[in-house]
């Protein structure tokens, strides 16, 4: 029963993701987020942080995994609230539209 529910949950997420991609909404959201993050200076802040990390590790020894490990938590934290709210609002609207189906 639990397994079936879990399965059902996963199925649902997969279905939603599918829908997001199919309608192109995911691309639109990604583009919106990118623009907003550049606009509010998130990228510059993260770049400065990157420089520190890279200088620490040495230019030759930088790997993508290191960067992702260092950057992602910072990136998540640095996203401004306004951007986060706007994005969530867009997602909810999308879900509501497709939940009614």
């Amino acid at each position: 029963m639990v397994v079936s529910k879990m399965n059902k949950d996963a199925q649902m997420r997969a279905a939603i993701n599918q829908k997001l991609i199919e309608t192109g909404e995911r691309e639109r959201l990604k583009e919106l987020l990118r623009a907003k993050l550049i606009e509010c200076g998130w990228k510059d802040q993260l770049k400065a942080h990157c420089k520190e990390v890279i200088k620490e590790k040495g230019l030759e020894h930088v790997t993508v995994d290191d960067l992702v490990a260092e950057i992602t938590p910072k990136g998540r934290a640095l996203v401004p609230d306004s951007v986060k709210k706007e994005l969530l609002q867009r997602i909810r609207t999308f879900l509501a539209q497709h939940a009614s189906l």
Partner: protein
Amino acid sequence: MKMEDMSLSGLDNSKLEAIAQELYADLVEDSCLGFCFEVHRAVKCGYFFLDDTDPDSMKDFEIVDQPGLDIFGQVFNQWKSKECVCPNCSRSIAASRFAPHLEKCLGMGRNSSRIANRRIANSNNMNKSESDQEDNDDINDNDWSYGSEKKAKKRKSDKLWYLPFQNPNSPRRSKSLKHKNGELSNSDPFKYNNSTGISYETLGPEELRSLLTTQCGVISEHTKKMCTRSLRCPQHTDEQRRTVRIYFLGPSAVLPEVESSLDNDSFDMTDSQALISRLQWDGSSDLSPSDSGSSKTSENQGWGLGTNSSESRKTKKKKSHLSLVGTASGLGSNKKKKPKPPAPPTPSIYDDIN
């Protein structure tokens, strides 16, 4: 397919919210991952630190944000207050008005300003010459020029010729002022007033001869023009006059007119008598008027033929040496009006004019 069956309507709000958060985290992570790829690529390609500059130079190129300055820290309207000095009138004019001013000042376009300037300058000269009439400058300078644009100069000499005899405000004077340079022809009785010259190259031999019998004719070193004043023009010496006549008319030509005007019935050929007459003449010359050129020439023709030229020249020379005062005016008139020297001048002048 299946999604439609288990449609989202069955999910409660908290579940939807969780899914939304999850999707958001996904998106942010995507962006972060994209950014990380970007940075990694930049590092490996070596252009990640290219836009790095040291803080000092960053400070130099900082954007200035102050009132009155542009972003480079310069005063942006500094040229508004700039002034240029006009090379013509040496006034300082606002830079924005400089071009229009030059146009007017240099007299391009319409000549009004240049003409006005000249008029002002002329009026100034006139005033000046009226105030210092005793200024003898132009008597002594040989720089007179043909068609002397300086009317003031002409007027000055005018005045000097007539000064002893005439009120500056007399009608005759004002009339002469109205003459323009070119209007006075060579036959004009007052041509010696007009300190102009004529170019001898353009004259034929007859003209030259007649000219040299009536006028000074000395060629100015400066303008290469002949002096058209009277034969006793004070600017030039008899020596110069003789040289010119010898040059043009040959060595046989002397100064008949000078001789004749000197040697008249009032004295004979002896030196002592000549001296006496000269002294008499000196005494009266200041007061007697200068004779007009035309009357003089007639005299010359009347008396000048039979006289001893060498003798008379001697006396004339002596005269020019001895008499410092009297050379300027009226040798010819002297002999005629000896009996009553001071009175007659003015009427005679009016006769000439009218």
